[in-house]
């Protein structure tokens, strides 16, 4: 009963569904990237280090890396490389030494990293991005934050829809 009343209270606190737009200083688009995501078990984290070392040896530049725990002792990784390097990345992932450890491998060959500035930890910035894009059934492949920036990865084919959607809830130059 106490939980139900708190849930109702949370819903009531959602506030206006169409608040005024938030002003951003800028929104940057990366060059076209290749996106890769995969899962390893915690005990196989050395595999991730090995893959990244091989990518470095092959001079593959990574503009985006996210790593986070999943359930059941999983570690989930997402990364982006410049589009021209993605075949090299694919070949590294296909090496026999990684076949056992890597699961749920996914490759999307044309994505863009969008970076919203400024982000100083304001939940409403993150909330608006997720809410507007998911309301319009636009897939966010991955998202993360760094110093002063909120970044998300979307497919190149969705880019125009993403920008149009973000313009509903943000203003930028």
């Amino acid at each position, binding site marked *: 009963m106490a939980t139900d009343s708190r849930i109702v209270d949370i819903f009531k606190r959602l506030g206006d569904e169409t608040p005024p737009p938030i002003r951003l200083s800028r929104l940057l688009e990366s060059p076209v990237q290749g996106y890769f995501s995969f899962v390893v078990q915690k005990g196989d984290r050395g595999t991730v280090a090995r893959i990244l070392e091989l990518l470095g040896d092959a001079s593959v530049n990574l503009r985006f890396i996210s790593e*986070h725990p999943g359930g059941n002792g999983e570690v989930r990784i997402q990364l982006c490389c410049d589009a021209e390097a993605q075949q090299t990345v694919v070949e590294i992932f296909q090496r026999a030494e990684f076949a056992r450890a890597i699961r749920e491998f996914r490759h999307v060959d044309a994505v863009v990293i969008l970076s919203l500035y400024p982000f100083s930890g304001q939940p409403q910035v993150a909330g608006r991005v997720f809410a507007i894009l998911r309301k319009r059934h636009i897939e966010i492949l991955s998202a993360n934050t760094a110093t002063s920036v909120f970044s998300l990865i979307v497919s190149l084919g969705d880019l125009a829809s993403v920008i149009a959607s973000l313009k509903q809830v943000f203003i930028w130059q």
Partner: protein
Amino acid sequence: MIGAPFDIFPLKITTSQALLAFVGQPVGDHASRILFGYLHHHGITITCLVEGPGGGEHRTLLLVISEGALHEAERELQALRTAIEAKALMIEKPVAVIRILGPHFDIRPGIAGMLYGRLEKAGIEVLVNSTTGTTSLLVVHETQLEKTRRELTAIFRLPKSR
């Protein structure tokens, strides 16, 4: 591949943090509005955020907030998890967030491999890595903070040691 140590700006370390992992969250705007609306309403700032695939059609959302904010919100967290229909909520605390900011990191291959390899060999468990462009945020247990700091100062060159 890697020659002289890379120069970085001073490490920025934020301690007394808590990592919240909402695992197995369905994709939907409603969950996002509830969770981030709650955080905004309570004035809770996000130190680090990572969101990604969670298996099947589900997603995983990780937030790092201050331990103080977690203490204030802890009684409502299970209700929040239920409201956003996440399968599980994992909490790790205390954790520290380490910011590594390096000029031109986004055009220098091999840094991630060097960093991961070194931390892995040192037995450091990186709970979350959030890297975009020139900045990495690493989340580690506070018990591993000093060890992590030592490894990072061995990999990178900080301004005062030049």
